[in-house]
């Protein structure tokens, strides 16, 4: 599975470069930058492409210390999130995940992606608009959120 190798590579690079980290950026940004570059390198390799598949062990990640009801709720949230992320453009999804999931600031995202901060904000705005609308539509279609 591609993600195995990509994750492995991220850790190898982190290990190799940790001694040279001088804290001119935050550790979080530093790690995100490495991950981003490793992924980008992987994707640029001929024959490689985003698989977008689910984690085989997601069940295990979800399962620890939660009740069945909580697990169901989590799975539903993941399904909805995945589905809405699928609807975003690559650029929107990238900033949305870095901001909303990884909790990076727009300044940090701009640093990681090497783009203008205003561009980050514009993409984030579009992504949030799409996400908000998607969740509203889901909830309106069916009262699924709470059993």
């Amino acid at each position: 599975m591609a993600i195995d190798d990509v994750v492995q590579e991220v850790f190898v690079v982190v290990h190799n470069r940790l001694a040279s980290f001088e804290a001119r950026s935050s550790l979080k940004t530093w790690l995100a930058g490495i991950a981003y570059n490793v992924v980008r390198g992987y994707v640029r390799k001929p024959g490689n492409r985003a698989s977008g598949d689910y984690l085989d062990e997601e069940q295990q990640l979800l399962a620890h210390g939660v009740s069945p009801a909580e697990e169901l709720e989590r799975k539903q949230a993941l399904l909805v999130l995945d589905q809405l992320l699928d609807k975003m453009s690559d650029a929107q999804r990238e900033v949305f995940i870095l901001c909303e999931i990884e909790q990076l600031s727009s300044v940090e995202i701009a640093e990681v992606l090497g783009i203008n901060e205003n561009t980050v904000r514009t993409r984030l705005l579009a992504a949030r608009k799409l996400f908000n609308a998607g969740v509203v539509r889901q909830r309106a279609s069916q009262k699924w959120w709470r059993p």
Partner: protein
Amino acid sequence: MSDNELRSAARNVVDIARSARTPNDRHRDRAYQALVAGLGGTVAVGTTKVASAAAKVALKGTFAWLKWAIPAAVLASGAGGYVWYSRAAVATSPTAHAPTVVAPAPVAPVVAPNVEQAAPPSPSVVSEASSAAPSPQVKPAPRPSGDALVQEISLLHQALAASSSGNAARALELAREHAQRYPKSRLSVERSAIEVRSLCSLGRPAEARKVADRLRSQAPSSPVSAALKDTCVGK
């Protein structure tokens, strides 16, 4: 509220999903152990499997969101040069000591794709893995569309409601309808649990046990499996 921020319902989805995909202490500990055991020692260049399989589960949790970064990276790197990391490059690159790793500043030299093809095989883990395999085209399970997802979840909730209200026959019927319509559902464990409970309530323990056995083998560590202890298949 404007779209400058996520609305509460959307925020709720993100918060739950983030929590679900955030490694817990156990996973972090396993990842740490893997790093100490594997990366802290004398790892040979080109070694592809430094971490144990179990630790990789934990590591994957940390980077679960990489799956979304992959397509994003395609676009972002489309006009740029070819960027690649390797242990050798890290050791020799003048940028190896650059303290700030802003993503566009690669550790490895930027190499044009045609040059890269002529270069000797990279010792990097990813390139080795990707070149060794003849470009396997993994076809992911199809994801439900928006309406299909709503219908799927709704059907499961109806089954849950029937089960909760004591209508085991109806719950079983709905669970089996769900199984028929969504055989590869990511909610199959929950569906099976409803089926087990319904079969127990209907006095059909042999059938319940079959479903429970399948469920336990499919998701042995799931709290859903553990929750079957108080049913007719409980041990």
